[in-house]
């Protein structure tokens, strides 16, 4: 039995998306910027996808920029904005952002002379509006706070922060919404920049988008032609961009459809775990639980792997590095013992029970 409980890291590919993508691959190969009919046909489909995505997210279609995923979108939003507005030097982000955000800020700090304030989450795991207010200065150019943390699942009220920033002249607000999309509601109304990935919502790897509001000017990081409003050069990955609309539509439909089922699964998991493990964090999104046991996470991971169960010990993007885990250390969680269990609607209650039973066996044996 294989049980995949690492859906925060990536997700399986939706069969509907796969089929559509394969159909497109069979038929289309032209450059979407070519002026003959076959090129125009692809262009039109891609633009229709953009329009549908914008409708789903309540933004304008020219505010959707296709990227290769959230890491690129985050890099483009943060570095693109800061390099375009080098006169303002102060930036704010949080200590527990995804590495693509955190390292963009590090780079701006170390290579380009920006000054960055890194906010630590409070004891509940949140970056609060008060912390942002405290750090905000007249020369603050950008505030970037993630909607949902990828290691503990904490949900930040970025809408409230965005609303506050809106009234602060010359300061932009970016949010990495990768872990939120398809899981909880997000209101992009006051958010200037937002990034997400397709592969976290059963879409293709190498696909994502940056939502960039009309008034926000960015310096292109990939120089090229007229693609993506001249903000992101390179021949469009059109077929991938075309299926992003379907990916997002299905994700948002399933968010409603499986809402109750996922809540029930969450309760099954928490009930099963509460006597055998310490639940480090469980007040964020329902589909992610961070726990610790008496066994070191690396050992536990290996043991679970033998049972065919896939979970991770920390953010997968930092899994091969030996740096201090920023999220867990901010919350005083011992990263050597923490593991992250993340399910979604492709999992079953039986799988969760199998995981709980297997964990019990492992703990009996090695704990």
């Amino acid at each position, binding site marked *: 039995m294989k049980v995949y409980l690492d859906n925060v890291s990536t997700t399986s590919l939706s069969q509907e998306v796969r089929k*559509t993508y394969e*159909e*497109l691959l069979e038929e289309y190969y032209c450059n979407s910027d070519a*002026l003959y*009919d076959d090129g*125009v046909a692809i262009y*039109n*489909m891609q633009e*229709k*996808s953009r329009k*549908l995505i914008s409708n789903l997210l309540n933004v304008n*279609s020219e505010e959707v920029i296709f990227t290769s995923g959230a890491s690129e979108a985050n890099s483009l939003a943060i570095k693109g904005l800061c390099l375009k507005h080098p006169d303002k030097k102060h930036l704010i982000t949080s200590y527990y952002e995804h590495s693509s955000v955190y390292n963009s800020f590090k780079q701006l700090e170390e290579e380009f002379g920006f000054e960055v304030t890194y906010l630590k989450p409070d004891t509940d795991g949140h970056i609060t509006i008060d912390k942002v207010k405290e750090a905000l200065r007249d020369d603050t150019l950008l505030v970037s706070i993630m909607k949902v943390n990828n290691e503990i699942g904490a949900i930040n009220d970025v809408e409230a922060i965005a609303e506050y920033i809106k009234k602060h002249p010359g300061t932009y607000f970016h949010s990495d919404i990768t872990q939120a999309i398809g899981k909880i509601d997000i209101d992009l109304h006051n958010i200037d920049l937002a990034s997400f990935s397709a592969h976290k919502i059963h879409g293709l790897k190498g696909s994502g988008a940056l939502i960039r509001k009309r008034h926000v000017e960015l310096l292109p990081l990939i120089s090229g032609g007229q693609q993506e409003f001249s903000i992101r050069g390179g021949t469009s990955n059109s077929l991938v961009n*075309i*299926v992003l*609309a*379907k990916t997002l*539509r299905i994700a948002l439909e399933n968010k409603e459809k499986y809402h109750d089922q996922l809540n029930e699964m969450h309760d099954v998991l928490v009930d099963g775990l509460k006597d055998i493990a310490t639940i480090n964090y469980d007040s964020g999104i329902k589909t992610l639980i961070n726990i610790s046991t008496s066994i070191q996470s690396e050992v536990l991971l290996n043991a679970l792997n033998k049972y065919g169960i896939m979970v991770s010990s920390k953010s997968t993007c930092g899994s091969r590095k030996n740096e201090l885990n920023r999220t867990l250390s901010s919350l005083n969680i011992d990263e050597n013992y923490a593991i992250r269990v993340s399910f979604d609607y492709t999992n079953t209650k039986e799988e969760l029970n199998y995981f709980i039973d297997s964990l019990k066996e492992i703990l009996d044996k090695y704990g």
Partner: protein
Amino acid sequence: MDSLKYDHIVVRYGELSTKGKNRKEFTKMLTHNIKRRLKDYDKLTYNTLHDGLFIKLNDEDYSSIKKDLQDVFGYSYFSGAVRVKKDIEEVKNESLLLTKNHNAKTFKVATKRHDKQFPMSSDEINRAIAGNILHNSDLRVDVHNPDLMIYVSVDKDFIYVMDEKIRGNGGYPTGVNGMAMLMMSGGIDSPVAGYMTMKRGLKIECIHFASQPYTSKQALDKVLALARILSVYQEEILVHVIPFTDLQLAIYKNVDEPYCITIMRRMMYRIADEICKKRKIKVITNGESIGQVASQTPESISVIGKTADTLILRPLSMMDKLEIIDIAKKIDTYETSILPYEDCCTIFAPKSPITKPKEDKCIYYESLFNYNELVRNCIDNDEIIKVSYRDGGSENESLF
């Protein structure tokens, strides 16, 4: 709060009511147009009466119908309504229930009696309802700025209780005043002209002059996309695509540059006129607006329009560009109109077009080549394309 469970929609006629003898024909067309627009909601049942159209919802989704119904011209307003028996106690109860669906602190009741035989006056009904609400809730009456308006309509067989009036776009039921031919370039103005024409009860067909290969397929697609957006007001639109290139080239070969646009526009009117006659269409309409470009000065419009016998109506003639853009945005054609594809007017635009053309000079230039045959070719090769918003504009629906 929109959780109130309406069981009916009441549509009131408004401007139509002034139309004595034609009224019946108008209400019939209005009902027809509404049924057409709402045909996806197959459980709806309709009852057209003298004072209004009563649609029974039969559990269809009101919030979605509410949006679609606003695409129909020719009524004054409509309301989601709860129907009750003609019994004041029932009206009182239903009105009180209705207040529970709102977070209102203040209210006002407005009763209209379409049935003058009803034993209570409007004022008595208002007082009875308001009294009941005041007794049984914390709401207060505010006759000037109420949070909640309760509309009560006493009709022939039933009483309707409502909490909103949705004003439509007014006008006349599209089709009741016959047909018009809209000259459509693909710019901002012509779709707005089409909208205003349909609003006055004229059903439209479109005529588009295509100059391929000088204009691209995208330019034509854009025109079809615009027609598709407009088709929501009349279900489907026929677009006449006229192959204009040969005639246009002949003009540019034979006519002095400042007059080229003038002659070109005269040819367009000739062709539109012939097609109107062929199809028994009584009106030509377009997006010409006084002074906007050289071909739209009073002198130009006058000289250009002389080549058509058919009545030419120019709904935008007295409007400012910004007013036109506002409407284009409202009817959702603006974003499509500004897509950057060349149309037949822009591609051959002379450097200094004449702003005060003389008719005798036009006639002179037109005598220099045999335009009749070229015009005839255009008419004979008219390609008619039917578009409808229901087609979604794409055969690729399954991809999304």
